[in-house]
């Protein structure tokens, strides 16, 4: 079972934070097909958020075909997210580590690097679905 948490200063809409956390768990394999997501009541009693926010997040996941609501039973994981193979992920991570080392040598600090990274992301996803992964 997944346990949600909230970053209230992130500026990311609460329902999207829930969506992202489910996707992350699907990617990491901590949530697998057949697993049940917590009920709206369970989530709101842990986080003190509006139940409609949870339902909105679950509807979004359902729309993307990742989960399925079964009336009276709950919401269940339909498929995992294997978009990125672990080997690819490890290789990309190594390249990123190397990039960070070079940036530090060049005198960039943490904020400089984060700014560059988010600019690159903005450019890459300009006109796309606001940084959303496509299946």
């Amino acid at each position, binding site marked *: 079972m997944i346990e949600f948490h909230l970053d209230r200063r992130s500026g990311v809409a609460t329902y999207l934070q829930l969506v992202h956390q489910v996707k992350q768990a699907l990617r990491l394999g901590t949530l697998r097909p057949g697993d049940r997501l917590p009920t709206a009541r369970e989530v709101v009693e842990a986080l*003190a958020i509006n139940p409609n926010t949870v339902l909105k997040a679950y509807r979004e996941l359902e729309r993307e075909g990742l989960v399925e609501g079964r009336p009276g039973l709950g919401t269940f994981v339909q498929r995992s997210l294997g978009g990125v193979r672990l080997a690819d992920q490890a290789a990309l991570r190594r390249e990123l580590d190397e990039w960070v080392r070079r940036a530090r040598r060049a005198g960039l600090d943490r904020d400089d690097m984060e700014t560059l990274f988010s600019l690159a992301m903005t450019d890459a996803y300009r006109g796309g679905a606001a940084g959303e992964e496509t299946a």
Partner: protein
Amino acid sequence: MTAALTVTGLSVRHRRGWALRDCSLSVPAGRVAALVGPNGAGKTTLLHTVTGLLTPHGGTVTVAGDVAFMAQDKPLYDTFTIAETLTFGRRLNPRWDGAYAAGRLAELGIEPERKIKELSGGQQAQVALTLALARRPGLLVLDEPLANLDPLARHDVMRALMGEVAERGTTVLISSHVVADLHDTCDWLVVLNGGRVQVSGDIDDLLAGHLMLSGPDELRPPAGAQVIEESRTGRQVRLLVRGAQVLDPRWNVRQADLDELVLAYLRSPEASALPRLSEVGA
């Protein structure tokens, strides 16, 4: 959308003048509505009229189902035990779910033999909330339920409240002068200012309908935009606008957040964002 609460043309006069002036609003069933406004805006007067504690001089209040009210000062009798408080609640209320009330307090670890005055502020708030919920209301009205509570107790009260909404679909109207308390919990917003309703609507719709623009000060507001608030510093102008389509690329555009939206309206008392009368429903 069925309304759990409909208020039309409500006016209340106090000795010093009008406390509420021609207030109209509606809250759809199953929503958690925030009633915000500065101190003295008329929030408590509005809640007292909704709950029937006060008779208005004009206008009507229609509620679907029973109303339960948790007042600001959490009126509990200090010398009563929890058991006595529950007995009192049962005698006062024809509709009373005693098993639920006892069960809920047991879950919270509040023992029946303890006296109200021995409880912490957070526990007293939980007892008051339990008494209101045991009446199984269709509409639960809370006046500043989080005032004087520490952050942990605030969180506990809101968790309990949200659980209730998830479980029973109870409609909630909750007043506060601290907008931050209502983030993530409320999905409907009513802004009351100087006895008038300035804003009433779905929070997501309101946020989507307002934009925060900043740019060089020679720019004119976009065509068709309702400017809620305008501020100038140096060569920069900042606008909070409603219903605008921004085409000029010199404007830096972002969505307003809830605090900015509420503050902008409160600082511009003549502005309003209200549904058309037909949407309020008769």
